[in-house]
């Protein structure tokens, strides 16, 4: 591979925010080399995995502790499994009991830590953790799948792969908390650890361990049920089981509330695309890698099961697009800047899902170029929080015209453009989206109506002396302070703002969820409504004893 030079890179521009930051495009992103699950495994592949403590009873209830260590540092997952009646099982955030609960511990826990955490972790939000604990989670069984696997293994046979392929996991997490929530360690305590530089590393670690736990639990329970006949779950089957997750609106405000972080994520992807498009000569090997993963993906799509008409439509369109692309790719001629030519064809001939799917695939042959970008995906958000009060009103007006031109023509007096409001439900402690003309509570609206409020800022700033400063403006316009901050951020971080009206009648909230989940590394999106969806994580990923020998291509491994 000819390494691109600065001169080559300038030949291809970054894609503009006006093209990428529409929700319909963001909601079409797919996992890639930059996904957090994959970068987690790359980072920790040479660490040592160990089961420190295993104490499950006949029914698979009790405690287990796993650790991941290198010569300097250890992280442990402590798992608590208990009996749960079917009637008590709920994926809603208001649930108070779960099949299992988990906490990621900084180091190796002492006995007294485990005792303390046993009294708190199963209580989740109602319990307390300390700075020694890094992440917290809980999960429920996919009961049919779990029971089927245990029964099969106890009878001395492997479970039905076709049956498993319809679900793809034994357990579903319903929340994963970190960064200081419920007493957990604040981010600053771990901010300087090199192995945790990538986003959500601790949460990805927790989910990876939980997957191991689910496999150990089925093996143990099967053995206890029938010690003489039970067998262990085959590694090939175990590898194709991931961890499910039910993701609701709780995740949606995140990408609005962390604008500079969102920019870093998007920028890394756009830089990766720019680098690949700037590769002057493609080798046969690089093309082969790409095509292998393309065909594997088309095959794996058969396991993308959903009842959602919306997602079925998107999946079918993607299948059609990939078929057309494959036909094009098979006859495409090698030439200079092959990937740039390929991208230009894709951008003119495929739909959003197809375009972004191919963008992800294009990164696969170029680990050396793309993987280092993972370390650029975090940011100290506080560094960009302070408003520069000396900026002039005329400058703010110009920034809005340059970066938010799309919203200047939107009429926010029209009902359909302000039909929704975001809020936190007092009873359910979760974000909600409701119709402001049909429901009460809009006086407690969350600051997520960015487009509407920036339009208001624009109208106000057009009415003041252009030479007046922001400090003067803000003395009388305190309500607009939070969007002034965002506008100043967007000037330096152009991918920080979703370029869509998040309170419009036409908003599809799962597009916001899809964006974050694609960066997590989720595949198989299964919307259950416009407001929540099921996904699977780590399906196909190496098992802990395989990590050291793994390569990054597991995301394309053939699934059940």
């Amino acid at each position: 591979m000819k390494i691109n030079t600065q001169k080559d890179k300038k030949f291809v521009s970054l894609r503009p925010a006006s093209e990428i930051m529409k929700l319909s495009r963001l909601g079409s992103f797919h996992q890639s080399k930059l996904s957090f699950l994959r970068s987690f495994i790359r980072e920790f592949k040479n660490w040592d995995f160990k089961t420190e403590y295993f104490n499950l009873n006949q029914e698979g209830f009790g405690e287990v502790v796993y650790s991941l260590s290198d010569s300097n540092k250890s992280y442990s997952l402590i798992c608590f499994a208990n009996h749960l009646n079917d009637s008590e099982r709920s994926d809603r955030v208001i649930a108070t009991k779960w099949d299992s609960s988990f906490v990621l511990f900084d180091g190796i826990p002492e006995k007294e830590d485990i005792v303390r955490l046993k009294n708190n972790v199963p209580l989740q939000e109602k319990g307390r953790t300390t700075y020694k604990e890094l992440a917290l989670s809980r999960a429920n069984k996919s009961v049919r799948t779990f029971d089927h696997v245990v029964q099969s293994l106890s009878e001395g046979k492997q479970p039905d792969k076709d049956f498993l392929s319809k679900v793809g996991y034994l357990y579903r997490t319903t929340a994963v908390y970190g960064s200081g929530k419920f007493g957990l360690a604040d981010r600053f305590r771990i901010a300087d650890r090199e192995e945790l530089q990538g986003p959500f590393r601790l949460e990805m670690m927790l989910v990876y361990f939980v997957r191991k736990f689910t496999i150990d639990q089925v093996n143990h329970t099967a053995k206890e049920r029938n010690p003489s006949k039970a067998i262990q779950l085959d590694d090939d089957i175990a590898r194709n089981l991931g961890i499910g997750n039910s993701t609701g609106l709780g995740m949606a405000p995140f990408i609005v509330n962390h604008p500079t972080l969102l920019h870093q994520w998007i920028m890394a992807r756009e830089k990766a695309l720019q680098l690949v498009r700037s590769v002057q000569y493609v080798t046969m090997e690089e093309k082969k890698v790409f095509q292998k993963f393309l065909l594997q993906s088309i095959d794996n799509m058969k396991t993308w099961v959903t009842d959602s008409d919306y997602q079925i439509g998107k999946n079918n369109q993607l299948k059609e697009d990939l078929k057309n692309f494959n036909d094009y790719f098979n006859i495409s001629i090698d030439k200079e800047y092959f990937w740039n030519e390929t991208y230009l064809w894709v951008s003119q001939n495929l739909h959003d899902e197809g375009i972004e799917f191919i963008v992800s695939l294009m990164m696969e042959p170029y680990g050396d170029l793309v993987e280092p970008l993972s370390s650029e995906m975090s940011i100290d958000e506080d560094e960009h929080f302070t408003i520069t009060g000396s900026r002039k009103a005329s400058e703010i007006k110009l920034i809005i015209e340059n970066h938010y031109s799309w919203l200047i023509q939107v009429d926010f007096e029209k009902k359909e453009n302000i039909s929704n409001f975001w809020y936190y439900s007092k009873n359910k402690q979760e974000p909600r989206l409701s119709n402001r003309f049909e429901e009460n509570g809009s006086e407690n609206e969350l600051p997520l109506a960015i487009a509407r409020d920036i339009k208001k800022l624009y109208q106000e700033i057009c009415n003041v002396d252009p030479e007046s400063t922001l400090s003067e403006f803000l003395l009388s316009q305190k309500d607009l302070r939070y969007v002034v901050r965002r506008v100043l951020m967007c000037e330096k971080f152009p991918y920080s703002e979703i370029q869509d009206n998040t309170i419009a009648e036409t908003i599809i909230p799962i597009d916001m969820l899809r964006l974050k989940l694609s960066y997590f590394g989720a595949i198989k999106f299964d919307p259950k409504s416009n407001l929540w969806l099921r996904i699977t994580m780590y399906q196909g990923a190496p098992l802990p004893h395989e990590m050291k020998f793994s390569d990054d291509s597991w995301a394309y491994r053939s699934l059940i």
Partner: protein
Amino acid sequence: MESFYEIETTCKRAAKASGFSWGIAEEIGKIIRSLEIMGLPGVKTFYRYLDDVKDGTLSKPTKILSKNIDNNKMYCPIESSVAILDDCKNLFKNNDVIDFNQMAHPLLLIPMLNRASNIIGKKISISFDNIEIILNYNGSLVINSKGPFPNQTNKVSIQSMSTEPTYSKKEYEDLYQLSLETFVEESEGKLSGAGAGLTDND
């Protein structure tokens, strides 16, 4: 004990519920978090401050002057320090003193003025009652009191400080001369050890 994330989030939401805009509420969350990280009673002070907010007894400055006088109400430390931070480059240009004739909960001034100190690259001093606080532009601070801190004060003075050395010219010069004793005297033989040769013209 709550994490700093929880403190920031709860105080931000409590501020919004108390009538502040989201933009100011965001600042308040970070103010209280900063105080607690410094080991100062941020949550306690904010809790008492909100009583004053509820009673409507605080004054919001419409413009920061060198002498800010309100004979009817205590100045609000949040609104005052936000306004100072927003205009800090101008206000601290000539190291003029900024006085408030009375202020509630002056401890709450510290975090915003700390950020101002970082922006202007100069130390800022805050004094009220017998308490002196020096904010260093690297985020650290020096304070001559462990508390308790007053709920209100009859004068607050804020001033940026030009950086003056704490040592005399002679003291520095003497140290410098001493440091030269770690160097080695040149000789003809040693000259060839210089990378560029005997002259700089190769």
